[in-house]
């Protein structure tokens, strides 16, 4: 290898599939000149489990647990999107309390996802300690969600027409306490990470995504918001109970990694605001729609529903032929589109920058592979 490398100008470096910072089994084939990258080619599919094919062979309810395994970090948003799609097909109206519960738990899940991202991203940049603090906070969210949903990671909680189990007083009290706690912890994150001169130098002006590129590649989520486009499905295509809450869409200016980082951190604060408002306004009432058929058999038709997941737009495209099994379910996952810009972003950067850029995209590889 080395002998040949001496004659040629460039060499090939395999980043992954087993590499500390590819976050799962992602392989990026790099063509390098010294420490500079001339070409990057992500190779995905190591974790392909055929979720879409599974969907065609199961009935509608049986596909529910799969959604928690597509993006295990923000599983509840995926649950919600699929439920929304099928509810649209069936014409079900979800009671308000159930929508509130969905918003509260979904936003908690979003915070936990962002917290994990923050920690893991700092790990990519070489800081070990923040991830443990993030996990400490995240653990509180998991404990709270455990009380409601029964599981800690691959949630399968929402059902067609509502949620199966109600939240209790203890959960509400615990969540309020958690909101208070996390707000004080943000100060520590600020001091430890956001203001850190090394962190700023590592992230500023690196991996800039222009608005034009956002459009061309169909990026969504914090990727576009970091570039200054205030696109958030919670606001632009209001679903569930989101129109009832007051929250801001944080945007960046330059579109570099630092902007994306700041967008995510501010998003956590906004999520806390949403949860707080939802807890204050939490209505009484049923948690399940009245006429949910025991046997889900939607009429012929197709539907596309989208939610704002932690990584961007998650869309669920369900085609029904009037049978108990869906004809086709396409999962539009945000990481897939977000990762597809990596080859363009990584040209003429250092390996260290590539790791930083890859981390800032916040990919969840099982979601890409499906």
């Amino acid at each position, binding site marked *: *290898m*080395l002998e040949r*490398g001496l004659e040629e100008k460039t*060499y090939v*470096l395999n980043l992954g599939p087993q*590499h*500390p*910072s590819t976050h799962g089994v992602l392989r990026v084939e790099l063509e390098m000149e010294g*420490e500079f990258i001339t070409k990057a080619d992500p190779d995905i599919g190591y974790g392909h489990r055929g979720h879409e094919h599974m969907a065609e062979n199961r009935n509608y309810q049986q596909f529910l647990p799969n959604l928690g395994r597509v993006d295990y970090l923000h599983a509840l948003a995926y649950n919600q999107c699929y439920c929304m799609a099928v509810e649209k097909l069936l014409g079900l109206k979800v009671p308000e309390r159930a929508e509130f519960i969905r918003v509260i738990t979904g936003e908690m899940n979003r915070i936990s996802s962002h917290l994990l991202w923050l920690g893991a991203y*700092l*790990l*990519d*940049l*070489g*800081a*070990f*300690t923040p991830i*443990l*603090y993030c996990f*400490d906070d995240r653990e509180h969210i998991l404990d709270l969600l455990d009380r409601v949903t029964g599981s800690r990671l691959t949630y399968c909680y929402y059902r067609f027409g509502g949620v199966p189990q109600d939240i209790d007083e203890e959960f509400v009290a615990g969540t309020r306490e958690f909101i208070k706690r996390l707000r004080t912890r943000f100060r520590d994150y600020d001091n*430890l*990470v956001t203001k*850190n001169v*090394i*962190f700023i*130098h*590592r992230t500023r002006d690196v991996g800039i995504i222009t608005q034009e590129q956002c459009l061309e590649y169909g990026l969504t989520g914090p990727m576009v918001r970091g570039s200054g486009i205030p696109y958030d499905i919670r606001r632009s295509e209001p679903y569930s109970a989101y129109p009832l809450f007051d929250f801001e869409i944080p945007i960046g200016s330059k579109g570099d990694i630092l902007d994306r980082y700041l967008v995510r951190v501010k998003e956590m604060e906004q999520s806390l605001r949403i949860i707080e408002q939802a807890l204050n306004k939490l209505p009484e009432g049923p948690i399940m729609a009245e006429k949910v058929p025991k046997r889900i058999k939607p009429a012929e038709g197709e539907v596309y529903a989208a939610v704002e997941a932690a990584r961007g737009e998650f869309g669920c495209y369900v085609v029904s032929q009037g049978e108990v099994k869906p004809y086709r379910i396409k999962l539009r996952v945000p990481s897939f589109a977000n990762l597809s810009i990596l080859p363009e972003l990584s040209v003429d950067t*250092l*390996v*260290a*920058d590539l*790791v930083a850029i890859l981390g800032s995209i916040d990919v969840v590889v099982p979601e890409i592979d499906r």
Partner: protein
Amino acid sequence: MEFLTQMLGADVARMVVGLIAIIALVSVNALFLIWMERKVAAHMQLRPGPMEVGWHGAVQTVADAVKLMGKELITPTDVDRPVYHLAPIVIFLPVLLSFLVIPFSQTLIIRDMNVGVLLILAFASLTVLAILMAGWASNNKYSVLGAIRSVAQTVAYEIPLLITLMSPILMVGSFSLADIVAAQERYWFVLTQPLAFILYIVCATAETNRAPFDLPEAESELVAGFHTEYSGMKFGLFFLAEYTNMFIVSALATIFFLGGWRGPFLPGIFWFLIKVYAIIFLLMWFRWTFPRVRFDQLITFAWKILIPLAFANLLITALIMKLR
């Protein structure tokens, strides 16, 4: 002892006993430092660290060392065999020799040389040779990248390191470490040379390849850098050398800026070790707080900030010395 003295002469006997003592110190020190690093990291991260083997996991590193020794030494195919096998030894020897001139207390010094500082710095530069050997011979792209980074880094950081140390040397007028400690009778040099102290700590962190300057082994980019392909005790030697290196740079900091073995009540050796471990704690504290800098930023930092500041510091020191 006496037998040895008669046979070899006092000087050589002193060297032999000293060397044995050094090897013992190096192993015990590394075992302790690894345990300390784990504990410091753990408590900063709100977890207990090793707790199972011995009191608070104190013997955990011994268990790990036994495991490392028991492991098979895998030699990957297509490595440059002689160089590959030699590298762990080359990295370990200079580290060992540096101890010869370190004054642990007023009397506890194996050989007081009038060029002690230069000796240590010269040996310290040898480490980079070993790293380059390891990286190149491993026939692994990650290792080569790590090695190349290491060379550039050491070249960039030895200059400010030396210039920084010149200021206290200028004040003392001697390269002998014992003399430098002796000169700090009234006050520690950290009081008169605070900038030099800070610069030295920064350079020392880079010199020992510790975070935030641990680019040769940046695990999020280069997996394990230059020692990716090493296993068993060969890896163990790299590890040992890293922690011993930490001890040496901290010992230098202690000697130059914190008054060496000087201190009230306790015998000199205790004060010396307390100060050394305090500096090591500082280095560990850095590692578990900061993200890693990027390679080009590292070099820029050395040439644009450290070297000018070190020069400025040296000039001002020289000026004051001249005026006094």
